[in-house]
């Protein structure tokens, strides 16, 4: 009975693994097919699509453009998100619950509504659609993720460490810089990678706030509207490799770090 249960549950797990991996593997495979036509059967293989895509200045530019947006928006999110987390964690004050609610709001608003709200607000502020508007929208949208991760880490910092620093004569600022901040580094790095990926992968905000220059997801979307093609597979695969590699690296890094801090 118990054993049958276990096998059935294991099947559920592996079925989910198949569900989430097979589409991506198929997409990667199709990028090497020597035909304009996406689908089976595959007769011969080629690297031409990759060669074409990587010598296309527009695609390369879009790649760089997306990375730039991701990096700049992440910088803003990390600073603001950490600041908010330090304020909210472990303190009791009037209005804290409201502030917490406001903090998580951008993460809970459904994608299209968030994009529309940012679009309207950007116009009201006089921000033209383009790189500035996208960076701003991504930064605001990602703040809650940083705050939540940093708050979780901060809640495990023993208060005695700060008190010890203060007893040794450190003022609040020095205590923060030399005790709190180093303790938060793994959380901040983890959150940064998450923000980078969120921004790099984001479609809906980039689509509604972008000007004439598309980010990578917007470019893929625009190409898809005029039909599937192996070039899209090549671009999407490149994006996939980049995001998965960063994700895996970050996962390993944070795991190593948390192991060290446990010792």
């Amino acid at each position, binding site marked *: 009975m118990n054993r049958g249960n276990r096998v059935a549950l294991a099947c559920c797990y592996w079925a989910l693994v198949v569900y989430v991996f097979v589409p991506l593997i198929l997409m990667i495979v199709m990028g090497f097919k020597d035909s304009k036509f996406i689908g089976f059967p595959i007769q011969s293989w080629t690297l031409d699509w990759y060669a074409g895509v990587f010598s296309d200045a527009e695609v390369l530019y879009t790649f760089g453009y997306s990375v730039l947006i991701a990096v700049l928006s992440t910088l803003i999110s990390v600073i603001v998100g950490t600041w908010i987390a330090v304020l909210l964690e472990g303190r009791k004050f009037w209005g804290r619950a409201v502030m917490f609610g406001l903090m998580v709001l951008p993460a809970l*608003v459904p994608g299209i509504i968030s994009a529309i709200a940012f679009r309207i607000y950007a116009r009201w502020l006089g921000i033209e659609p383009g790189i500035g508007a996208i960076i701003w929208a991504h930064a605001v949208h990602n703040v809650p993720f940083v705050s939540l991760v940093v708050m979780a880490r901060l809640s495990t910092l023993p208060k005695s460490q700060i008190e010890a620093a203060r007893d040794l004569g450190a003022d609040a600022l020095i205590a923060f810089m030399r005790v709190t901040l180093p303790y938060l580094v793994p959380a901040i790095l983890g959150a940064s990678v998450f923000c980078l990926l969120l921004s790099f992968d984001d479609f809906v905000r980039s689509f509604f706030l972008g000007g004439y220059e598309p980010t990578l997801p917007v470019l893929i979307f625009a190409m898809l509207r005029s039909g599937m093609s192996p070039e899209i597979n090549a671009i999407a695969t490149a994006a996939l490799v980049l995001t998965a590699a960063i994700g895996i690296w970050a996962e390993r890094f944070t795991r190593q770090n948390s192991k060290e801090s446990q010792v």
Partner: protein
Amino acid sequence: MTYDASVQKDGDDSTTSGGSRPFWGRVVNWRPYQGLVAIVTVSPRRQFFILVAFPVLWLLTQHLGPMLQMLHVSLLDAYPVAPGTAHTFTFDNYMRFLGDRIFWQPFFRTLTFAAVFTFCTLIITYPVAYFLARHVSRKNRMLMLLLLLIPFWVGEIVRTYAIMILLGNTGAVNQVLKWVGLIDRPIPFMYTSFSMGVGIVYLTALYMLLPLYSALEKLPKSYNEAAADLGAGAWTRFRRVTLPLTLEGISSGCTLVFLISTGFYATPVLLGGPSTTVFAETIAGFFHVAGDEWPTGAAFAVIMFAGALAITGVFQRLMKALRKGDTA
């Protein structure tokens, strides 16, 4: 500054923080820094206000501001307001929604689809979370979870495209079915609510899996053993112990996935067809054309957010009642 003096005396400090000591020592003795500290630390009260001022400003202007401005625009008769003319407040934009079938049909379709897809996600991920939390050793658990995480770092558009390739007429699913001999001609999966469902469940599964997993992991095994000792069978144990105690995880996972599902724009555009137009596409339509349609689009976005929040609110109430009923 006592800090500097204490560092000078403290010999051990150099072994832990290496070359940073002179740096911090210099910072502490730097006049502008001392001035700053003097201003900031006059009283704990002022310290707190300085810490609080920026976050409050940010939250109000950046997190709340866009939502309020959207609400504001939804009540205007025209936007942007032409210079020199007075704008008037009106509910016409909201009335327009009620007046036309092509508006409220996608609205109810979106909410229904989101509810159905959320339920599917729950059914698919619950056994997986249960398996990981209960039947896998602690060491393998993280690896097996990580394996599922990898595809979720890949973007929405790329994964949607992958589903297009999977379900197309010459896609893998149709090829396999043909090869097995179940079908002669391809089944048109694409551009239906089915393909949309496959895509959206794919995109949201992780947001369901993680809350369920953490809820199941927190649940002590001894509860189940106690129930078994008292003679409860496997099904009874699940229904009377495990399920009630993970309702909180189910509730938060479903809320998150439902809200995310209502907000998809690109996935329904690419995977859905004319018969599956969702409200996000309706809203987006008002922003592609010239600016004077913005108030209607804003009103529709407000309607959608309110609708989604109302449903999650009712759902959470129900779950709470269910939790209380079970423990009583």
